[in-house]
């Protein structure tokens, strides 16, 4: 009864856009169950120990014989915890391969490579031969009910990739490639933070995972692969002010690789850690540090207002 109440409370107190509860992925569901089971067990254990302690501290009570107290240590301190922990550990170890395979031999329906950068995410969709099909940033679009292999890398410092609703986290370490399997089970939009401290704006390094039907995903993917250029002179201000040195927009001459790929920028939900609005975009280009302290992108106080507006127009129209 108490356990049921507690688990209901736990679940209701813990759902949200970035929560480990209300799972929308296979790994997250399995872990959710494990958390509920262990949390309820822990609450019971705590209740028993605390009651014993309060009882033992009472002035008027039965005084135990030494042998009884000795037996109490043997059973309460050694035997029962050992049995319980052994059972719990067996259950958890048994459940591990179901969440993350012991050996990485499975076939993936989709392969994605995500690289942590200070303080954003470089996302590359790979084609079947393992080459980069196209690149995007900070928004991870995924098809529902497919097994997706995500290769995790980092260039500068250690980051950690985590979308709580889909599964546990995995670190991105320079010099290594880690693998994480995602299997979204529910359509929706889920938030994920960087989970390893990575510098000044670590708090602002966030990612959105958008889980869509396979058809929608395919449409989007084909659109990105066969991206046709927006009209050439629309991007003139973008070109003139040197943006392509760092940024790429597919289908144009802008091919910079240092910063995020800005293709289809209009569709992005967020800009840095703020909403993707014209006003924010204007201010972001003026001084990215205002939004993300310590960002690699320099401030551009020298771009004339007209030019800046033209760049904003261009990006805001880029689909």
């Amino acid at each position, binding site marked *: 009864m108490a356990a049921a109440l507690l688990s209901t409370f736990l679940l209701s107190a813990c759902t949200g856009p970035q929560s480990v*509860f209300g799972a929308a992925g296979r790994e997250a569901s399995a872990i959710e169950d494990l958390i509920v089971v262990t949390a309820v067990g822990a609450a019971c254990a705590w209740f028993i120990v605390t009651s014993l302690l309060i009882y033992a501290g009472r002035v008027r009570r039965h*005084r135990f014989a030494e042998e009884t107290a000795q037996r109490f*240590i043997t059973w309460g301190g050694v035997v029962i915890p050992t049995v319980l922990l052994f059972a719990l550990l067996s259950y958890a170890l048994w459940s591990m391969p179901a969440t993350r395979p012991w050996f990485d031999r499975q076939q993936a329906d989709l392969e994605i490579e995500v690289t942590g950068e200070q303080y954003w995410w470089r996302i590359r969709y790979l084609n079947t031969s393992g080459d980069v099909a196209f690149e995007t940033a900070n928004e991870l679009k995924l098809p529902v009910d497919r097994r997706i292999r995500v290769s995790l890398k980092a260039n500068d410092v250690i980051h950690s990739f985590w979308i709580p609703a889909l599964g546990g986290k995995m*670190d991105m370490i320079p010099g290594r490639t880690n693998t994480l399997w995602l299997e979204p089970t529910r359509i929706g939009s889920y938030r994920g*933070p960087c989970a390893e*401290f990575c510098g000044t704006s670590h708090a602002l390094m966030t990612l959105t995972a958008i889980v869509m039907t396979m058809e929608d995903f395919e449409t989007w993917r084909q659109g990105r692969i066969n991206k046709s250029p927006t009209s050439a002179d629309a991007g003139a201000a973008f070109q003139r002010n040197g943006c392509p040195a760092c940024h790429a927009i597919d289908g144009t001459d802008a091919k910079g690789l240092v910063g995020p790929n800005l293709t289809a920028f209009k569709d992005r939900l967020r800009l840095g*850690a703020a909403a993707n609005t014209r006003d924010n975009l204007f201010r972001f280009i003026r001084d990215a540090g205002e939004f993300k302290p310590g960002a690699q992108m320099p401030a551009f106080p020298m771009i004339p207002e007209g030019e800046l507006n033209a760049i904003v127009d261009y990006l805001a129209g880029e689909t």
Partner: protein
Amino acid sequence: MSSVEDRDQTPISTDEEERQLRAVWANPSGWRYWTSVNNTQIGLWYAATAFLFMLFAGVLALLVRAQLAVPENDLLSADFFNQAFTLHGTVMMFLFAVPIFEAVAIFLLPPMLGARELPFPRLSAFGFWSFLLGGVFVCGSIFFDAAPNTGWFMYPPLATDKQYSGIGADIWLLGLSFIEVASIAAAVELIVGIMKCRAPGMRINMMPLFAWYLLIVAGMILFAFPPLIAGDILFEMERMFDWPFFDAGRGGDPLLWQHLFWIFGHPEVYIIFLPAIALMAMIVPTFAQRPIIGYSWIVLAAVGTGFLSFGLWVHHMFTTGLPQISLAFFSAASEAVAIPTGVQIFVFIATMLAGRVIPSVPMLFGGGGLVIFVVGGLTGVMVALVPIDWQAHDTYFIVAHLHYVLIGGMLFPVVAGIYYYYPLINARKLSDRMGKIAFWLMFSGFNIAFFPMHFAGLRGMPRRVFTYPADVGWDWFNMISTVGAFVFATGIAIVVVDVLRPKHRQPKGEANPWNAGTLEWISEPEENWGVRSIPIIKSRYPLWDQPGLRDDIAKGRFYLPGAVEGYRETLVTSVLDAEPIQCLRVGGTSYLTILSAMALGGVFVAITFHWWIITALCAAAFLAFVIGWLWTGTAIPPEKAEKDVGLGLSLPLYVSGPASVGWWAMFITLVGDGTAFGSLVFGYFFYWTIHDDFTAGLAGPGLKWPLVALGLFASAWIAMVAARSVNRGHRTRDMRVLVLCALMLTLLGGAAALAGPLLTQMDPTEHVYPAIVWVLVLWLVSHAAVGVVMQLYCLARSFFGRLTATHDIDLVNVVLYWHFLTITALTTLGVIGLFPAMR
């Protein structure tokens, strides 16, 4: 057994004896007070300093909480916030949690063991001054906006990025290395003190549990801190000279730091937690008014916890992508450690059940602490399961978990200890009323602050974020946490007020106000001598089981009741059975301890700012002070061979070899030193295993020069061993010749060791392979250099008549150093010579 001259002395009255004893142990007055080395003073200064650092780190925590009270707050800048939480964690761990127990141990152990002093009082003083200087250096950095800002775990490559971390990372690495030296010094002191300075009759199975725990913890420090020091060395070499240990581009690997850091970092948790449980193990029997139930259980459990704690470190790295099979192993080990921890809690409950508990403030804090700690232990069982950790790792769930463990398992018992032991400091109790108010504020404030963090964490709030948006549902949890944090802080403020408020109007209480059974309660707050006379112990709770003991001790009816020759003396006993074997003269008041600490501090500060000339000057000064300290304070041939210590017992004043405290101290220090060296060798093989060809095709030191060096070092070792034995045969001249030969061979050996990498022009900035070879070689050569200084010291002692056939402590200890140096040489040269070839 007593000698003729002792019997010739006219017997002196007890009052006269007491006067002499008081004069010998008196602290100097005026400003010289600060040169005092008495364990009571050092313990109190140490504890007060650690407590001040705790308050400082607490204020940082309140700033952090204030910033997080509401979403998108702009109270603190991102960079200041990052400095604040880094320093909060660093200070709490290194400047409060570990030192406070060294402090309490230095203060309590001598009277608890029935000793006058710990064996090396000057070493304690040196440790304290090092701690103070290092701590001020680290904490002060935040006032210059130069504090470390990469988290207390200092993960490279973020922390090796000079542009991001600035000088803060150097301050962390060097300031804390300095403090780690102090911690290891304290560990040596405590181990030798507990093993060799117990009162006669206090066999090892009669030791107070506090001493057992501290022995285990000091042993853990000895094995846990050196890997971090090794890591610090690699780290500074990368930061200062660009040796690429953690740079993936040149063969390094950031994960090596994580391994070294957590091999230190996880035992650290138990290094903090076990002494607090030790305090509980003293408090619970007193208030249950009966001996502890399950003495063997709790000792075994403490040993088990200490042992297992070295096999858990990977649970801090469950998300780094290590093979699942190793995760499963470390998960099992992490669950296993819950068992001995549980045993200790059940021992307390069983003791309470079998006794009748007297309600009191110490029990309130102790019990409240356990209630909190159990929550942390149980969430620990949860996150030790690998899948749960994948979700919970680096979230506020962990922040809640670790604070439940550390505050429940450490801070509450410490406050219980303050209320319990305060009468030993000031002969008066603290206020019951203020204690209760403080407890309820702290207890409720703590839970209000930290319980909601479990939910914030499960809702996905990561650690170390300076801000968060309003739309993810963390705002209420954070607001509640912040309110709780301030309530908690109010409780701590009340404890501080209670301790500091003037109490001279309050009448002095009785000597053993809680009617405790253990020996520390015979100590008199106004006296410096620890115990008036050193008793014979026959029970685990001598004050309960040996009637009249207090009176007999105070009247000087046991050993060493006076100080006829004017020296500070204590008894040295055997390790297991505590049979008296020596009357040890310990070091007295000295300014050398402060000067050496300042010189060593100067070395670390100067390196931080790359002031190389000042570094060299400070290092030279440090060497001079240490040699002066050793020359004037250690291994001094006494004026007579034996001394009557009372009760018809006569003991030698000079003992060398394994019976002496100096030999043990050298041995223990070398075990710690060897552990640091082992960590560097671990680094070598770590690189060797992660790469297919870890030499990257670069030239190695070859086989010839390492083998030549090895031969030279081995010959030097044989010469030293021979020198020791000819010295015992009164062949002083032959001894000097042999030591001189050994010295030459050592110099040549060092040169040959350097020749390998020098002649093949290994460039340590090019790749990790030459870098790690160079580090091993430099480690060996610097140890050989220290060995040469020791040999010169022995020669000088011999010429000045302080090293003779019968008084050979110096030589015996240096030979002991040589055993370790030879193992180091064998390992280093074998590894660098053979292992690139063997694949």
